[in-house]
């Protein structure tokens, strides 16, 4: 189970502390390059990809499931976009205008939504466990992607899409702006919409949610559709930044997105997770990734270091958790016993 420290609001404070500590550490290790504006901008270009994938994973996990197919869906979206471009603009795809580009994005989004809807249907109506459904879909999509691309990289995307991925609005990278808008939207979605609120309740106890008139099945289908929409958003940025799509881009990101959720306080059993926690977790992961890259270490050493960092975070979390848990239990019991007596029984 998740260490308790990651689930409470005070956990976000801890995460914020961790973030500050890591920024300081990275700046100390890289005094020239890390704290520079250029680096900040560079990080804000990269953050959206990991962020969208993590958010897509988050909604699935909050519902009590998981979306193992998210990367495959992103790649699929990109490939569909390439297909649409080829169908509409033929060899002149690269010169295509915004209208065609938007059409391609629309096609990609539609493909992602279809994938999400199918997964959501299997999970909600046939009651196939989410881990299996998304595993199967991941395998299927990876295969489809491979069959379509035959392993080749497709490239030559139009200016508009490159702008989405690489452009700037003033001093701020466009992908970052999109991220900010999306995070704001998510904040509203999770706390203020019926679907968002239902999501948390159903993730924690789907049976009670059903008994409470919460349209469990519809919410689940929407959840996986939303998760896949995030995959599509990721694809838009990736396509824009890399000007190419391939059958298995970003495979390693799957595990990183699960990690971001875990750090951000999302219980894999469902029902918890704050957006604040997620944002902090994603930024922490991005900072660590960039900082470590700047140190020009062997990329595989960096990979091993990632693993070690996860373990250290787990260890730190656990120790802190013990103290907090004990303190919390005492306060709760105190509050109950001290509550004024009434005509009904007091606490247990």
């Amino acid at each position, binding site marked *: 189970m998740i260490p308790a420290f990651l689930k409470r609001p005070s956990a976000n404070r801890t995460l914020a502390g961790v973030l500050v500590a890591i920024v300081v550490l990275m700046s100390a290790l890289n005094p020239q390059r890390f704290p520079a504006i250029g680096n900040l901008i560079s990080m804000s270009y990269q953050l959206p990809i990991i962020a969208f994938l993590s958010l897509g994973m988050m909604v699935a996990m909050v519902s009590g499931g998981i979306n193992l197919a998210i990367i495959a869906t992103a790649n699929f979206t990109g490939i569909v976009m390439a297909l649409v471009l080829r169908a509409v603009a033929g060899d002149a795809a690269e010169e295509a205008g915004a209208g065609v580009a938007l059409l391609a994005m629309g096609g990609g989004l539609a493909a992602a939504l279809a994938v999400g809807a199918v997964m959501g249907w299997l999970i909600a109506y046939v009651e196939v466990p989410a881990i299996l459904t998304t595993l199967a879909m991941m395998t299927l999509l990876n295969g489809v992607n491979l069959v379509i691309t035959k392993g080749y990289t497709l490239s030559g995307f139009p200016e508009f899409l490159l702008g989405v991925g690489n452009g700037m609005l003033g001093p701020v990278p466009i992908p970052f702006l999109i991220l900010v808008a999306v995070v704001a939207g998510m904040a509203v979605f999770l706390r203020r919409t019926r679907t968002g609120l*239902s999501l948390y309740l159903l993730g924690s106890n789907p049976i*009670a949610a059903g008994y409470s008139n919460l349209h469990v099945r519809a919410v689940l289908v929407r959840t996986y559709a939303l998760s896949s929409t995030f995959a599509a958003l990721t694809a838009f940025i990736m396509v824009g930044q890399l000007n190419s799509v391939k059958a298995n881009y970003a495979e390693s990101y799957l595990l990183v997105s699960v990690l971001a959720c875990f750090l951000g306080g999302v219980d894999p059993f469902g029902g918890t997770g704050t957006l604040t926690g997620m944002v902090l977790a994603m930024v922490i992961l991005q900072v660590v990734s960039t900082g470590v890259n700047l140190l020009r270490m062997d990329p595989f050493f960096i990979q091993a270091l990632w693993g070690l960092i996860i373990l250290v975070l787990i260890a730190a979390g656990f120790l802190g958790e013990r103290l907090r848990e004990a303190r919390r239990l005492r306060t709760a019991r105190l509050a109950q016993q001290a509550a004024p007596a009434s005509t009904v029984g007091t606490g*247990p």
Partner: protein
Amino acid sequence: MEEFLRLEKIHKSFVGVHALKGVDFTLRKGEIHCLVGENGCGKSTLIKIISGVLQPDSGRIFVEGQPVASLGSAATMARGIQVIYQDLSLFPNLTVAENIAIAEVKERGAGVVDWDEVRRIAQEAMARIHVDLDLDAEVGELPIGVQQLVAICRALTSDLKLLILDEPTASLPKRDIENLLSVVRDLQAHGIAVLFVSHKLNEIFAVAERITVFRDGERVATLPPNELDDDRLVALMTGRTLARKVFAFADAGARKVLQVRGLSKRNHFADVSLELRAGEIVGLTGLIGSGRTELALALFGISPAESGEIRVEGKPVQIRSVKDAVAAGIAYVPENRLVQGLVMKHSVEANVTATVLDRLLGRLGLVDPARKQALAREWIKALGVNVSDPAVPVQTLSGGNQQKVVIAKWLAASPRILILDGPTVGVDVMAKAAIHEYVRGLAARGMAVLLITDEEAEAVANTNRILVMRAGRIRGEMVAATAEAEQVQQLVEAPS
């Protein structure tokens, strides 16, 4: 009778709370002893000290006359003391035989499992209390009454001298309770003492040799059942007397809110017809497996009926989903509040408002947090839920308060028809009375209530009509005012 266990001047405090205040307690060999008290009275703490989970701050413990320095878990098991918790500590993925035998197999320490031995151990344990269960059944698929028997059998595989049962009948249907009580008597015949904690007064009276009442951390009285009755017991437990109220239905000419005709569902119920008028509380009783909950779930849309007609306020309605039911003004308070009624880890506010998110929308179709909070507070106050902050997780509340939250959440949906399924199960005496009073008040204000209950006494006191279901059909109707609990019971249990 010889003494088996003696506790002297036991004190136990948690931060700022003095849970046990100098308690003296004795248990005789082979006796059946019940522990009663309201939530928070200290009985759970006492049990934990006896079973070794907690250590007392001061005081002495004697087991079979020998002073015991500290009673840790392993030590208690070695002395023949076993606890069966409410969650039963069973392995749902293993068979009955394995669940029963696993403790003993572990004790014997063999690396390789002898499956014949496992069956033998299980069969011996079952034989001791005259039960015969399917050894190869997967425990997770068994009804809870049977699971409890498996847990008891497991306790029997060791040299059992004292069995502690923590609220064993809380979620058991009537027949299984009878079973359990006879098993408890059987244990006594083997010289095994049984200490059980219970809220259910009628069971306590049926089986206890001595009853100990706790209140506010002190042992208030230890008496044989013939020196106690319901009223005296409640007075000892709560320090108050409980006024006895009975429901009276005033308006015989009230409009019919619910009319059901010929409702059927294969393997659930058949040809059910009933009527509910505004202001009535109609009781629906019958054994588990008689179809009462199934009928309720059909009216609530969780498990829709296959044929028949339902009319609400005279208009025919189709109930194919919970949404349809709620739209028709039907609310259902489920029998299992932990799993069906509440999302335990979420706040009281979230739970209370879950059913009416559609009605809390403000600008842009978004839920208005101020209205949400206000609604929650309103209902918390109306039902007297004892909680200071609606944002605390509902799992921190007592059983009675939790039940009120479940009721509140459905009242918030402004139903016309309220179906209550076992609303006072596992709720202590005072909270039970409060809930009864509240429901009577609801009816007085025009709500049509269908009260599904196992307890005939509850039905007789709180309804004006009682419907009895058996084997999927409604077999009879009685007028509560002239019915006695025993009469109802007879009709419930009569062979078809």
